[in-house]
């Protein structure tokens, strides 16, 4: 039986605090800073960058405070108590009976992502101080970067889908501005447009999903919770209530997932992500670690009940999320092998890691997937910033691993060590952070009965280890090549990829002057300055240690994330929805009697209460499985190392030019280099097949039907008009016209003196006539 709050003794009052209640300030600060930078940035001593860094720092402080108080809040709850999120909402605008709210929804998930976003954004801004020094649109860059983070933060703590959509779109816009930061280069603005439009394609799904959810959930949420159908909390509860029509919720979930595919770069809309490398490296780092691409994963995690019910997560067989995630893992990892551009390798690895997160979410491994967002942010940001450090200080703004890098481990020790730590974390080597999240995902996928998908995950881990080893080898080992070897003829710049915009545009001239560059005029490879290396070191320490926050191998007491972040799947009864605006709902949870029984949430209709999170299972950790995946990773790394050594250093004759000699391999290589011809499919086939037939059909219609009708009409009109001209026009009309003209002429001559040509006179006439008319009207009416 269910117990109400008054009868239950185990319920503890949840503590709250200033930081939790005022978490909505976290995105407000960067947004204000954005406005200030745009308005006054150019006049400030540091060109507005100090405002950006300061705002991100204060957001970080606020987010950390909220995190600390959230931990206190979860600690104050009993073990099986639902930890109520701190929700505040205000009415934003009303229109036609709809009330659009604005507010915050603070729970473990949003606090976690808030901290990560604020943290990475702060470090990236500090890094950009050095990396973009002397850029011609320095102020503009910091403004966009700040708004970008602000958009992500607003999206993360949104309490309803409208604010969520707002943050989502602000990010889309800012990513466009940042990717196209050096828009003078045609390739960069094309990449920015591609990113924007590809993401927009998915956004249609988000709009459809939000609308469908609103119209199907609104009645239920108003009745049971007193919130609108946009509320995230309302939608979650509605999805698990057993109420929704299964077709409606499935279609909504699919529509929302399409948005996630676009935003998070999942197959088949992943093509924009590698091109987004055209932006400055700090942007890539921010975009690929904690903001933008994580948004799609976050949406799935946030509205998990909708996907859980709509797409039948934990059901037998795979569902849409898992299939897309699994395809993404493998195809993007395969693409990473043929890239020469270090940032593109990292981009494809991001796509692949996002695939892991999706796979985890689809397979019911919610916590490992969310934890992977957390750990991935640190090591991926570190890798990208490392790549930026190399190009900034060693390879002369080139990102080409084969031509301009190699042997850098001796000249850039800090970059090298941080890179290696992050690579090990990415590959999931024990005890680096990636191990605790990625391995958990793979393990849980298997544990929930999806053996095939677990094998795909392991294959992905193998490929990850292999391509990262290849990239590390090409960058840091072997003989220095190209710019790293000290060759920096400026001619070579122009032949480089689009990313060289940095060199060819702004710092091209300033680069030669020692004052603007810390190298002091020396062009040889060297370690980067402190503003670059300190963020790298901080991130690599976190890449090493952040995994211990949920270290499943060491037992229950180490699983802090599970305690703090995972919503507890208990049926909440005794709902009072009297909470007005700005006041959190007061909800009590059932007593301890059924605390150890299986929760009905997610599997059946709750009888008397409301569920906010589905019941999920956790795989028990086994060392045997971990050792197996370690072995696979090691195998991948070792194989790739040997091949790289033979291919790039020893120039083994059996391997060099293999793709030219063996036809099948050559075809495969070509297929990969052309990115599975997806870009061709989108641009040449889909866009053309839609645009061309419409254009040619319109032309045919124009030439044959419209023109035919027009010609026929013209001929008959011509005949008719001849008759009309002779009989009606000449005799009847002309007669009338001539007579009336004579009449008008005489009237005109009479009225001519009034046409003085003076505007004031006309005005006086007009107004006096109006006054007379008004007078007449008044007299008639009285």
């Amino acid at each position, binding site marked *: 039986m269910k117990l109400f709050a008054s009868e239950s003794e185990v319920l503890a009052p949840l503590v709250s605090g200033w930081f939790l209640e005022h978490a909505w300030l976290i995105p407000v600060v960067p947004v204000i800073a954005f406005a200030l930078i745009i308005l006054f940035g150019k006049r400030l001593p540091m060109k507005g960058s100090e405002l950006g860094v300061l705002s991100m720092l204060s957001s970080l402080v606020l987010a950390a405070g909220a995190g600390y108080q959230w931990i206190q809040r979860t600690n104050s709850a009993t073990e099986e108590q639902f930890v109520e999120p701190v929700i505040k909402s205000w009415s934003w605008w009303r229109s036609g009976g709809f009330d659009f709210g604005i507010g915050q929804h603070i729970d473990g998930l949003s606090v976690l992502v808030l901290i990560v976003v604020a943290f990475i954004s702060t470090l990236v801004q500090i890094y950009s101080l050095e990396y973009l020094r002397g850029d011609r649109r320095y102020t503009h860059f910091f403004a966009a970067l700040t708004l970008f983070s602000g958009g992500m933060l607003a999206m993360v703590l949104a309490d309803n889908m409208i604010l969520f959509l707002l943050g989502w779109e602000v990010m889309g816009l800012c990513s466009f501005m940042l990717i196209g930061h050096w828009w003078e280069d045609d390739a960069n603005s094309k990449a920015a447009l591609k990113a924007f439009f590809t993401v927009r394609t998915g956004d249609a799904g988000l709009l459809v999903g939000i609308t469908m959810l609103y119209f199907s959930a609104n009645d239920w949420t108003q009745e049971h919770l007193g919130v609108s159908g946009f509320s995230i909390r309302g939608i979650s509860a509605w999805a698990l209530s057993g109420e929704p029509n299964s077709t409606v919720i499935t279609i909504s979930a699919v529509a929302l997932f399409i948005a996630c595919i676009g935003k998070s770069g999942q197959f088949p809309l992943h093509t924009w992500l590698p091109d987004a490398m055209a932006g400055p490296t700090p942007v890539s780092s921010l975009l690929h670690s904690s903001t933008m691409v994580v948004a799609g994963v976050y949406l799935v995690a946030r509205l998990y009940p909708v996907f859980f019910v709509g797409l039948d997560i934990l059901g037998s067989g795979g569902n849409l999320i898992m299939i897309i995630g699994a395809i993404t893992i493998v195809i993007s990892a395969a693409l990473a092998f043929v890239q020469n551009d270090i940032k593109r390798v990292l981009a494809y690895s991001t796509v692949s890691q996002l695939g892991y997160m999706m796979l985890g979410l689809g397979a019911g491994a919610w916590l490992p997937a969310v934890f992977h967002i957390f750990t991935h942010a640190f090591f991926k940001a570190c890798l990208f910033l490392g790549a930026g450090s190399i190009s900034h200080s060693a390879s002369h703004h080139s990102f080409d691993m084969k031509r301009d890098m190699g042997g850098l481990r001796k000249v850039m020790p800090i970059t090298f060590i941080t890179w290696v730590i992050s690579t090990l974390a990415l590959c999931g080597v024990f005890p680096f952070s990636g191990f605790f999240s990625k391995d958990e995902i793979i393990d849980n996928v298997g544990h929930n009965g999806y053996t095939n998908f677990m094998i795909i995950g392991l294959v992905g881990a193998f490929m990850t280890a292999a391509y990262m080893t290849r990239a590390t080898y090409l960058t840091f080992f072997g003989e220095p090549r190209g710019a790293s070897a000290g060759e920096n003829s400026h001619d070579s710049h122009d032949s480089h990829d689009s990313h060289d915009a940095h060199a060819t545009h702004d710092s091209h001239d300033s680069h030669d002057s020692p004052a603007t560059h810390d190298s002091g005029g020396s062009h040889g490879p060297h370690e980067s300055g402190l503003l670059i290396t300190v963020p790298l070191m901080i991130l690599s320490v976190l890449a090493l240690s952040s995994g211990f926050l949920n270290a499943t191998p060491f037992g229950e007491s180490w699983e802090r994330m599970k305690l703090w972040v995972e919503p507890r799947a208990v049926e909440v009864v005794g709902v009072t929805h009297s909470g007005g605006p700005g006041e959190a709902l007061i909800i009590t949870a059932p007593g301890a009697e059924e605390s150890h029984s299986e929760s009905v949430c997610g599997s059946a209709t709750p009888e008397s209460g409301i569920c906010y999170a589905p019941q999920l299972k956790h795989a028990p950790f086994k060392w045997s499985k971990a050792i197996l995946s370690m072995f696979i990773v090691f195998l991948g790394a070792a194989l790739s190392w040997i091949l790289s050594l033979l291919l790039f250093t020893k120039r083994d004759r059996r391997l060099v030019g293999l793709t030219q000699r063996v036809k099948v391999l050559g075809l495969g290589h070509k297929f990969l280099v052309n990115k599975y011809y997806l870009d061709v499919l989108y641009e040449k086939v889909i866009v053309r097949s839609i645009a061309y037939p419409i254009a040619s059909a319109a032309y045919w219609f124009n030439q044959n039907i419209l023109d035919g009708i027009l010609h026929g009409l013209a001929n008959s009109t011509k005949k008719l008009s001849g008759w009309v001209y002779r009989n009606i026009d000449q005799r009847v009309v002309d007669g009338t016209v001539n007579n009336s003209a004579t009449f008008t002429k005489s009237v*005109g001559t009479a*009225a*001519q003196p*009034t*046409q*003085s*040509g*003076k*505007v*004031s006179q006309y*005005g*006086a006439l007009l*107004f006096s006539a109006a006054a007379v008319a008004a007078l007449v009207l008044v007299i008639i009416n009285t």
Partner: protein
Amino acid sequence: MFVNQFLFLAAVLFCIGVYGVVARKNAVLMLMSIELILNSVNINLLTFALRNGSTDGHVFALYIIAVAAAEVGVGLGLVLLVYRNKKTISVDDLSEMRG
């Protein structure tokens, strides 16, 4: 509601505007006077809208503001062109339309 006061204000503004249009020679000042007239009408609309408790008047007032903005844009453009061609903006010198 001080309906009378509002209406009186509107009437005064209207008369000032009419005076400006009729008596001023400067084209820019004439445009400004027209603005006064439009805004006095706005005040009337809003007054009656408030008295009748309906929002129709507000809607019309908003439309008038939008149209007035467009009108000023066009008007100033005309004044600028006239100035370029004739080096004057006194409307008395513009009497080519005399019949």
